[in-house]
């Protein structure tokens, strides 16, 4: 049984049909074609597929796509504004905080969720923000440093 699903993806209305019971990750990738979201486990244990749903971090692989009807979803594909990189993206580059790059989209979204609500995070806040995201390459330190850099670099929100 196919069901229709409609939501906002990176500020654009999108709609697709998917098998009922599909997870959001598969719908984003296979249905909508947003390949910036990566899948690492489909078990909810690696954080690779992290996206923001109404501003909050969610594991798209264990999120029922139908539960996102009408919601607003952010993926790394929408992170930069035109040609301008998000401060997190710049900081990740400057800190060389990616090697294979596969966990990076999820890491960035987990970090964005933190900075959106806590513009001045402590190291402990950052460690907590990314603790559900597995990275097998970097040893985490460059990622933590990049998120702290991005917080310092970002224009202060009110």
């Amino acid at each position: 049984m196919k069901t229709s699903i409609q939501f906002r993806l990176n500020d654009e209305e999108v709609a697709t049909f998917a098998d009922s019971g599909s997870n959001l990750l598969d719908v984003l990738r296979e249905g909508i074609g947003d390949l910036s979201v990566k899948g690492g486990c489909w078990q909810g244990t690696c954080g690779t597929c992290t996206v923001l749903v109404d501003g909050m971090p969610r594991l798209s692989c264990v999120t029922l796509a139908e539960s996102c009807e009408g919601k607003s979803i952010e993926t790394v594909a929408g992170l930069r504004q035109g040609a301008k990189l998000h401060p997190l993206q710049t900081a990740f580059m400057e800190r060389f905080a990616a090697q294979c790059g596969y966990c990076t989209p999820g890491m960035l979204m987990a970090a964005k969720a933190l900075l959106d609500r806590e513009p001045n995070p402590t190291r402990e806040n950052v460690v907590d923000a990314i603790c559900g995201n597995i990275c097998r390459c970097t040893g985490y330190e460059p990622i933590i440093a990049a998120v702290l850099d991005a917080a310092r670099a970002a224009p202060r929100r009110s």
Partner: protein
Amino acid sequence: MARHRGRGVATINYPIGMNLGGDPSQALVHSNPTGKFTVALSSIDLGQGMKSVTRQICAETLGIPVEDVYVDTADSDTGPHCMGSFASRGTHRVGNAVMAAAREARAVMMEAAAEELEVDPGDLETDGRGSIHVKGAPHRAISVRDVAIAAQFRQGKTISGRGIFLVPLSDVNPETGEMSPATCYAHACQIVDLEVDDETGEVTVLKMTSAYELGRAINPKLVEQQLVGGSWMGMSHALFETPEPYYPDTREGPRDFNEYLMPGPGDICPHDIVVLERPAPDGPFGAKGPGEMCANPSLPAIANAIYDAVGVRIDELPITPEKVLRALKVRGRPEAPPRVR
């Protein structure tokens, strides 16, 4: 409760490239008509930075800015054979192949430039900024772009090069083990400081201090990536990882990242790193390979530091807190653990 601090050390070396050699890699380098170069490979970038390292090696060899080189990999229709991305062979083997290809391409580029400037190619040099000039006379110059245009549209030359690097295969003497396993070795020494909780057996790694010798750091940032990530993986092997926690019983094998244990971002520690460069005679600009050796010293250094802290030897990996606690119960909790140093 008592927490005991300990310090351990390990020194290691690591062979570069496939054991016994016999593991070739090829590269093709060519210019487009406006002097921008493409490196065609079939080598794999699985995060270690293959594309970036070979790009810098190619730019250095050609004598042009790195921005003017793009590495295209890995398509079996366009990229020539490479044995693969393993055995710390990327920088050394593929780097050498790219260097050879770039040298050949550079020779054509210099010939074409010489023809345009009406001088001998041997009198020319590159400035690394996209220009070629007569040695000692920087005003007698031509841009790489103009050379490429001239080569393609006037001279009918292909500014391109082929490269292969092969360490010839060595045989092994079955009786003595005599062989030529590798042409060069990377080196490392790591000192680990940690703390052991003598009531629970839990180990907290506090600090790593390491020196790595890797011939030449083609890109120090990429080297740092390998060394930091590799030490994390070494710590993980030492203290956490196993797919068979009850071996030889295969019950309870982890099925996911919750059950397969690896250090989290709250388990990492500061790491002071020093890099030494003793160039390998056959390495590209002397480079060896940092990718594998960096994980190895952490396992024994951690095991040795645990002994230094609480006087127990765990010779079976991973060194789980349970194993430490069991050993402590056998040995008795040390009031003053025997010092190694």
